[in-house]
């Protein structure tokens, strides 16, 4: 873990010029090294502020852990990024050019942001294989889908992922009958096969055994560099095993950001989150 190069903290109070420059649609431009920009985002539900002037920046290829008390707004943050929830104010960019607030869920997903949900959501009536097939990265238009045929490479891909998530034997099972943990894995598999630029992973190891947790950690670490990964998890051991940089959310804003050690020893974090 020591070989992870530590990057300096980003100054959250600086306003980057791309935010003010207006939108240029097109490919993801991460030339500044940052893939996800959230600036001054506010979300409230019936007066309750779930996100409060939140600013967060995710680097290209980075593996970021997001922790924070229950209800701090982690899931809401992912909802904002994936287009499920529209913030009251603030800006959210993918790369320097894609304004996520102007895109809907499928567009965001196609642009390369995928997500694993907190509560495992797989398609109960489809088999494990078909679940992966649907998630797979391809053209997702209606007509292409209608005439889509799996080619060898894609089949291999699915096979590989099936191995990775340990469901190779169950590939023809309907996903509905899987146990909780198996569904978690399947959903991770669906995430992998989308080959996204950014992965948002909400509580991946809930309901997994130790060994599986380790395996997940391994998996996530192996993705580093190729994908930017944002992981939300309450399992500190797990977080410790993967984290390079940790962001702590509290009451809708960033409480602190730093290495695991910094975070663990921060009195505020201990008070609101970790406990002694």
């Amino acid at each position, binding site marked *: 873990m020591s070989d992870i190069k530590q990057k300096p903290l980003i100054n959250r109070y600086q306003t980057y010029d791309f935010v003010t420059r207006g939108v240029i649609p097109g490919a993801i431009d991460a030339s500044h090294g940052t893939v996800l920009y959230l600036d001054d985002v506010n979300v409230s539900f019936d007066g309750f502020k779930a996100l409060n002037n939140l600013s967060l920046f995710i680097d290209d290829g980075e593996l970021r852990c997001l922790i924070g008390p229950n209800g701090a707004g982690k899931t809401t943050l992912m909802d904002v990024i994936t287009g499920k929830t529209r913030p009251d104010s603030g800006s959210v960019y993918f790369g320097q050019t894609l304004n996520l607030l102007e895109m809907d869920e499928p567009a965001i997903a196609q642009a390369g942001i995928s997500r694993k949900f907190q509560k495992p959501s797989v*398609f109960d009536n489809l088999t494990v294989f078909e679940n992966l097939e*649907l998630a797979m990265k391809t053209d997702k238009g209606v007509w292409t889908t209608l005439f889509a045929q799996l080619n060898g490479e894609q089949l291999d891909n699915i096979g590989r992922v099936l191995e990775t998530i340990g469901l190779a034997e169950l590939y*023809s099972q309907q996903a509905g009958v899987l146990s909780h943990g198996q569904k978690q894995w399947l959903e991770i598999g669906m995430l992998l096969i989308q080959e996204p630029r950014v992965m948002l992973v909400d509580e991946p190891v809930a309901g997994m055994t130790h060994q599986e947790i380790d395996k997940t950690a391994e998996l996530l670490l192996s993705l580093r560099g190729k994908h930017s990964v944002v992981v939300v998890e309450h399992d500190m051991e797990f977080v410790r095993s993967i984290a390079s940089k940790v962001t702590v959310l509290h009451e809708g804003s960033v409480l602190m950001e730093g290495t695991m050690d910094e975070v663990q020893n921060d009195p505020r974090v201990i008070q609101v989150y970790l406990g002694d």
Partner: protein
Amino acid sequence: MRLTFLENETESRLILIALATITLVIPLCNLIFPAESALYFSAYSISLIGKYLTFALLALSLDLVWGYCGILALGQGAFFALGGYAMGMYLMRQIGTRGVYGDPLLPDFMVFLSWKELPWYWLGFDHFAFALLMVVVVPGLLAFVFGWLAFRSRVTGVYLSIITQALTYALLLAFFRNEMGFGGNNGLTDFKDILGFNLQSDAVRACLLMTTGFALIAAFLACRWVVKTKLGRVVTALRDHESRVRFLGYRVEMFKLWIFVFSAVLAGIAGALYVPQVGIINPSEFSPLNSLEIVAWVAVGGRGSLYGAIIGAVMVNYGKTVLTGLLPEIWLFTLGAMFILVTVFLPEGLAGLWRRKRGVKPS
């Protein structure tokens, strides 16, 4: 790696064989054998079977949206009726001067209510090709506009069901109005011929039955193909978990729209085949109760299985024919009881019964 799916091969094959037999053999029997022969099928049976097959096609179309895409459309009858009207208008124009007033242009019902000229939307229907086009375009277009609005706004579940019902109800009221120029309550009747052939001749009837049979087979194969493609799986997935599909990058509304329009077109074709065989099209086809009945056929047959829809439609309607003649006073009891028993004891309809018999695990 073989992919499994809801549809089962054996049953599909059986139903195809059955359909092919009906389509080819029965009309031939009607034409070849003399009326006394045991193998003879009367014109009555022919038109009856023809009607069942159009209903089967209609049920098939509903099963696609409801069984596979989860859209409980309570207005499927509207598309059916529109297709029927398009065909009816063609048949009306075919009457020419043979109407009772002998007006070369205006249908009878317009003449005695002093219409002076043909409304614009009747133009072109004297061409068979144009009418055929309209048979698919009109229901398709309506489904497209309606679906586009509804799916884009993410109207789902019962909300969608009820507005489809509102749609067909509104059309019912509209078509009832004499001023609409579709014959009001009486609808369009008294057709003479189609493509110059007398509608009441045995050969034409047999042909119509064959056409319907082929249309049904084609539609069945097409639907089967659709549900087996990846699109079919996307649609099944979004039936169960719509928002998740969206997060995978699929434009859910487009998929729904595609299925919805496709199904509306099938329903329209069914309507167009229905009209020349029963000889009348009138607004009651738009009635919400009719659309509800279609749902009942599909449910009886087995929602989510294409052959089930076909079996359901044929069974229920055959039952209706027999019972309304046999037990005219109490047949509704039988029908009602059948609906209740099927739902309670055969959760997956007749298709489920079949599946269970064969020991296939229910999904």
